[in-house]
């Protein structure tokens, strides 16, 4: 045991000397490992980041929510033209549903439209304008940076008031002070009565409340909607266990309202964010697989590079191996020494890769892409470089260990 520790220490000194003597070569050799480790860490960081961003986004909207709409979001069984021909979901149906439904925690109608909004010289195009009633907030987890949500009086009376998302506020009022300002949606003027906290994230697309504004439902009907009276019924279950039965109840009520026979298909969609989540997960999955393939290739090439340079190193140091054997180094000592050298090469590559990954993820974070640097990524990176080191170092080290001392000493 004692011998081993001296040997390892000697191995370490030899390895660092060898690396120092061949700086450029070592750097070039580890490039593959550096790239591999950088990409694996960045990958897991980005995937984790998107995932977390989406989770927080969903929880802002309310994770126990469902939405009754004309279109089914993630139903591939129904052809698109059949969906197009479905009747619109309308206010009257919402009223009936609300009367009959016993299970939901909260329900609210909403209607959306894309419009341009303006304040002074600032202008944002294609903003999702969501028309809501005062009940809408009960189906969400919205919190406010300033002000409040639309009141019952305001929604019933179709007052010209607006609640804006955090991103909208940031763009129109970079210096703050949005409250009570008048903004224009298309050609109508609205007074800002509330600004939302930052809630969602860009991965949610149009559903991100940060990029939306909320006005009384009737204002949408009156000024912006083409398909007149088409709404979404927002439903919130009390908790995740309730989702299934709330959904079943909604389905049977809607079928009754629509007067569907038992052999007719639903002509409405009941959508959940879970569907969105699955969609995103499968997208991330594809990206992840592609990333791992690239990473795997980079590491493979890196490992071959290390193996190659280790073979060169063994060849170059044949004489040294002979000397060491002559004065008492065992084969296994030589084996360990060269594996250690490959290992150190890979670990250095891994550390440099990790450093790159950290710097890059900081840059990416500055660009507003969600990243989440995990400690398991660090462990993963070092583990990968360790394994690569051992695997790529073994064959050259073995060839060194098996050298005949007589011939090795004769080598010039």
């Amino acid at each position: 045991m004692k011998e081993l520790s001296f040997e390892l220490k000697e191995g370490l000194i030899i390895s660092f000397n060898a690396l120092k003597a061949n700086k450029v070569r070592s750097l070039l050799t580890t490039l593959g490992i550096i790239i591999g480790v950088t990409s694996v860490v960045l990958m897991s960081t980005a995937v984790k980041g998107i995932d977390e961003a989406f989770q927080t986004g969903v929880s802002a909207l309310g994770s126990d929510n469902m939405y009754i709409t004309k279109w089914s979001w993630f139903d591939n069984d129904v052809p698109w033209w059949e969906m197009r021909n479905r009747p619109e979901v309308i206010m009257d149906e919402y009223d009936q549903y609300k009367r009959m439904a016993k299970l939901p925690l909260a329900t609210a109608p909403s209607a959306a439209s894309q419009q341009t909004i303006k304040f002074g010289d600032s202008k944002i195009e294609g903003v999702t304008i969501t028309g809501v009633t005062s009940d809408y907030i009960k189906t969400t987890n919205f919190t406010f940076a300033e002000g409040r949500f639309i009141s019952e009086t305001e929604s019933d009376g179709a007052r010209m008031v607006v609640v804006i998302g955090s991103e909208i506020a940031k763009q129109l009022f970079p210096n703050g002070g949005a409250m009570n300002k008048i903004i224009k949606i298309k050609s109508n003027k609205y007074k800002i009565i509330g600004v939302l906290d930052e809630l969602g994230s860009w991965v949610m697309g149009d559903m991100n409340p940060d990029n939306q504004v909320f006005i009384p439902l009737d204002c949408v009907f009156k000024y912006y909607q083409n398909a007149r009276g088409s709404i979404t019924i927002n439903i919130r279950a009390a908790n995740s266990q309730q989702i299934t039965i709330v959904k079943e109840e909604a389905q049977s009520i809607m079928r009754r309202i629509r007067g569907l026979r038992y052999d007719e298909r639903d002509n409405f969609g009941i959508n959940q964010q879970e569907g969105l989540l699955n969609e995103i997960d499968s997208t991330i999955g594809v990206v992840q697989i592609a990333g791992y393939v690239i990473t795997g290739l980079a590491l493979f090439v890196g490992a071959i590079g290390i193996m190659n340079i280790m073979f060169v190193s063994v060849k170059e140091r044949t004489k040294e191996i002979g000397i060491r054997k002559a004065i008492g180094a065992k084969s296994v000592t030589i084996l360990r020494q060269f594996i250690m050298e490959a290992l150190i090469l890979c670990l250095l590559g891994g550390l440099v890769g990790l450093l790159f990954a950290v710097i890059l993820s900081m840059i990416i974070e500055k660009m507003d892409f969600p990243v989440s640097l995990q400690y398991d990524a660090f462990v993963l990176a070092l583990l990968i470089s360790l394994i690569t080191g051992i695997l790529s170092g073994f064959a050259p080290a073995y060839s060194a260990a098996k050298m005949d001392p007589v011939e090795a000493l004769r080598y010039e």
Partner: protein
Amino acid sequence: MNIINIEHIAKIYTVGSEEVHALADVSLRIDKNEYVAIMGPSGSGKSTLMNMLGCLDTPTSGLYLFKDNNVSEMNDNDLARIRNKEIGFVFQTFNLLARSSALHNVELPLIYAGIPSEERKERATQALLSVGLGDRMHHRPNELSGGQRQRVAIARALVTKPAIILADEPTGNLDTKTGEDIMGLFAHLHDQGNTIILVTHEEYIAEHAKRIIRIRDGYIERDEFVTNRIIPKTKISVN
């Protein structure tokens, strides 16, 4: 007391389809504190014999007892252990590690022997002092003269207190004056009780030893004691 006892050893190499008898049939004994020179022209088998004596190689047939241990049947690890503890090599081309200091070079066998750091340093320093290199310990081989390098190599060979010191043409790469110094050092080491085996093709160098074994074509041609032994004029001053 016998340190080396060789009986009828042979070494056969196969080169292509041809068998080369590097050593045909050699028997010899070497006692403690002998000073032996092994002589022979190139191709005589003296290098093969030296490799065999140094446990770098094992015979094809025959018996080799080193301090009553049967070397012919040892595996790689046992051979490495014997080389480490019992044999001190001195080579013609010095064979020092270029990137390491003299001290580290001398320490190396002790590292493989598992000696703790302080004791290692102490013993390596002592060995370097005993060859008169106390002031060059932290120099690298390329900062030392040929004679100094060979003395580092001798210190490395001595540091484990081996049973034999095996020197292969130790003066081959040195000028006459420096070679004489090194021979003086060997004489001194022999006086201190070390067993020295010298492999050389130079008659003059061989005559420093007390016994000369002449090899030719894989056989021992003659094995005789030196009557007019050369005693080197210069002896390394040792503290």
